[in-house]
């Protein structure tokens, strides 16, 4: 049997971290991310009415705009927060628990670079109604980029030899040299400025989210807590 106490401490720390970071993200999203997204949806809906062959299937259940929609977004944010915190916690468990929350901000930064910045360089966060390549292709590129970036950063930070560090740098840049899958005909229902605002807002919101995950995980999962 494995050490249940270690596992329980890790999971409880991740639950608190994900809950607080997810709620914080939900609040930060209300500043610019959500307003921009809702504005873009007005353009998307205008196109949908004109062209019935849209990928959005409005037959299925979806939360009502307002509190219901915010509630489900918060739930998604908290789930992502707990998921990311469990991954960071697993690495902390293997490499040694942090002695101070400030130290674990670095883990948050690494998570931000790995799961958000690097994939977003090729596939920037999109407002609804943006033309994009096939979903499966984008998901594959996203996953490969996240794995490459995570492994590349680990090698750069922890590898002992220059050869391994060099290999880490190659891993970091290779998905971007290959390039993300692009749509055959680029275009968006929403104006370009709106799409640009959404990208900056998402970069900011995710930075706050990840630093919160790193810092809180350091607080809740530090040595001898």
């Amino acid at each position, binding site marked *: 049997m494995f050490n249940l106490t*270690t596992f329980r401490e890790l999971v409880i720390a991740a639950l608190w971290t994900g809950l607080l970071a997810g709620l914080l993200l939900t609040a930060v*999203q209300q500043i610019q991310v959500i307003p921009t997204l809702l504005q873009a949806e007005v353009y998307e809906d205008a196109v949908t009415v004109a062209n019935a062959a849209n990928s959005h299937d409005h037959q299925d259940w979806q939360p009502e705009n307002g509190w219901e929609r915010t509630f489900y977004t918060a739930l998604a944010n908290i789930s992502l927060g707990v*998921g990311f915190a469990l991954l960071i916690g697993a690495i902390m468990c293997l490499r040694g628990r942090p002695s101070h929350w400030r130290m674990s901000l670095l883990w948050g930064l690494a998570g931000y670079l790995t799961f958000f910045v690097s994939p977003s360089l090729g596939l920037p*966060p999109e407002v609804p109604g943006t033309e994009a390549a096939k979903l499966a292709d984008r*998901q594959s590129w996203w996953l490969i980029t996240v794995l490459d970036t995570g492994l590349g950063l680990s090698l750069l930070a922890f590898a002992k030899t220059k050869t391994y560090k060099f290999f880490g740098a190659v891993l970091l840049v290779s998905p971007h040299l290959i390039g993300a899958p692009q749509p055959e005909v680029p275009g968006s229902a929403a104006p370009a400025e709106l799409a640009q605002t959404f990208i900056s807002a998402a970069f900011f*919101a995710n930075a706050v989210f990840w630093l919160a995950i790193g810092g809180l995980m350091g607080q809740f999962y530090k040595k001898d807590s």
Partner: protein
Amino acid sequence: MSSTPVLLNNTQIHTEVLKDKILPAMLAGMLGLALLYTAGFAEAAQVHNAAHDGRHSAGFPCH
């Protein structure tokens, strides 16, 4: 009277590391991936619609 030092052989140390670190970390990691998959990638329309804004904000490839 000094306490008797506990001597562990290599196999015992490996078992300890496995039980105290590797297995809890692996299990937590798998739980984390399952959550991320559900919130970020699951295709079911209801899950997609509920998590829609969260996915767009996180930059996950969405529809």
